[in-house]
């Protein structure tokens, strides 16, 4: 991949009082690839993608999308620019139903006068589509599609968030530990979904602690350590043991140019 990165960040710094979450971190995502981001708990992975997707504003550093410097003030702007994110804390509205959550900000309205002038929602269309997306993810234990999200099990909730991101295909999809709470079957479906999205040409950022999954789907692996990018490796050239050794500091990284 000698092309230009689609999404690029250089020297990102984010401090919270006495805590340093990002310490001059770099980041590159190339078109059409699956980039995995791995690292210890608290290494700064979530902070990195929050900075990229406009959810927090970095103290220093610059971000470029398709070569253009960007400066998102809110996740909405990032989304408008085509960056769709599933945050680790899921960002669902607890009291709203599954369907309401999936379509928040992109509601389907009734056709004709009722929808255009009266702005009436098409509840049944949204419910149908929500049920379909959940079935695609294998979430068969959800009995009532109008259940409030706060009453869902941990994994069901995560499924809803992932289904939402997948349903609204866009320029980049960022998934922060999308399978952490998922069961065996549901996790597998998410992996399939990721591959499916890539086959539509959309690049994906996947944060995960699951090494077999990472090595199964990733094209490149960004290893994050102590708030910065330690290195990027090609999963075909390194073993899982290498990756884990790098990310935990058990082994130091060979000084070679970053894989691209």
């Amino acid at each position, binding site marked *: 991949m000698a092309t230009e990165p689609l999404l690029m960040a250089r020297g990102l710094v984010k401090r919270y009082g006495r805590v340093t979450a990002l310490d001059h971190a770099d980041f590159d995502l190339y078109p059409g690839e699956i980039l995995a981001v791995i690292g210890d708990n608290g290494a700064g992975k979530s902070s990195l993608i929050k900075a990229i997707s406009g959810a927090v504003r970095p103290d220093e550093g610059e971000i470029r999308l398709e070569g253009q410097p960007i400066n998102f003030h809110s996740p909405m702007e990032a989304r408008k620019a085509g960056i769709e994110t599933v945050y680790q804390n899921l960002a669902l509205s607890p009291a709203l139903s599954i369907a*309401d959550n999936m379509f928040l900000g992109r509601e389907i309205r009734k056709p004709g006068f009722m929808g255009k002038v*009266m702005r*009436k929602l098409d509840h049944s269309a949204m419910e149908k589509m929500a049920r379909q997306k959940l079935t695609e993810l294998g979430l*068969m234990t959800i009995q009532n599609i109008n259940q409030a999200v706060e009453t869902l099990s941990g994994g069901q909730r995560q499924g809803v968030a992932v289904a939402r991101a997948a349903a609204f295909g866009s320029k980049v999809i960022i998934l922060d530990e999308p399978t952490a709470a998922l069961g065996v079957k549901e996790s597998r479906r998410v*992996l399939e979904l990721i591959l499916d999205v890539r086959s539509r040409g959309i690049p994906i950022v996947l944060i995960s602690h699951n090494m077999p999954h990472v090595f199964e789907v990733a094209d490149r692996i960004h290893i994050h350590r102590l708030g910065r990018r330690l290195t990027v490796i090609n999963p075909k050239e390194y073993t899982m043991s290498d990756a884990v050794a790098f990310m935990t500091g058990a082994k130091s990284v060979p000084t070679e140019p970053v894989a691209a």
Partner: protein
Amino acid sequence: MSEPTAASPHHDYEKVLKDSSTDVASFDTDDKSFLQKFRHFLHSSPSAVSLIVLVLSLVIFGALLGTKFFSAFSLTLILQQVAITGIVGAAQTLVIMTAGIDLSVGAIMVLSSVVMGQFVFRYGLPVELAILCGFAVGAICGFINGWLVARMKLPPFIVTLGMWQIVLATNFLYSANETIRAQEIETTAPLLQLFGDTFRIGGAVFTYGVIAMVLLVAFLWYVLNHTPWGRHLYAVGDDPEAAELSGVNVKRMLISVYVLSGIICALAGWALIGRIGSVSPTAGQFANIESITAVVIGGISLFGGRGSVLGMMFGALIVGVFSLGLRLLGTDVQWTYLLIGVLIIVAVAIDQWIRKAAG
């Protein structure tokens, strides 16, 4: 998306998944009894509970007082007495749904009514224009509230507490506390008294103010439940951060809510002229506490994101029923206050109890 398109799973055990069951879980609910259907109904329509409490209190006072209370006339009188609280309560509902609170509703209402009146009588504006100006004033006050809450991220309690004092003082400074008498309004600008006009259906007496409240509540019910804006409002109140991350423009929502609240308060101000006949700067001192009470009795959470505007209306009516009922029972004013205090608590306790039983 059906089979993996590229890599194959690292773990063998994942291969068995292709045979896994694809039925949506369902259970024999044996939910056929009336009671259980009723429970589901209560569960899915939160305002039904306040409605039950309302009906209960009507029945009790009806039994105690007979036709003196249980007449078309008395019952519609209650509607008239709560119309203003109901309208202001609608504004309050919107704000409280966002986990805010609006202490300035009463002040905005009164300022708007004073502007409507003074613009006719002091500056000789046509009454329609004066009314529009009143609405504009309501909207501006609401906008300032909303801007301070959304942009400056100040707590709604403080913002609207400050606005309450500011608007009240502005009102007094502007109007010099002059009352415009009913008789003058009647001859020069009867449109100002529109909402006080009544029509009868049998013994029942309705004012247009009552109709305004009912239509407003119905309209807001529709907006909250059947439009994107309504869903966004719930989301913002529920968890603003999550709403923001899922792509709701939280700031714009908040500002629009406070502006709408201001406009509704102006409507209440207009209705107030109808109710008291005159334009008086001293009205509405307790509108904020009364509207908040209606909202809370109606089962709406002060922490935002939950509840129904119908519940608010029932809440306002419950207080109205108690107040009139107790006065008719002839209790001393002090005893009335005491009992209203008790009954507010009891009403909410029954509400909670029904919700729990329906759980």
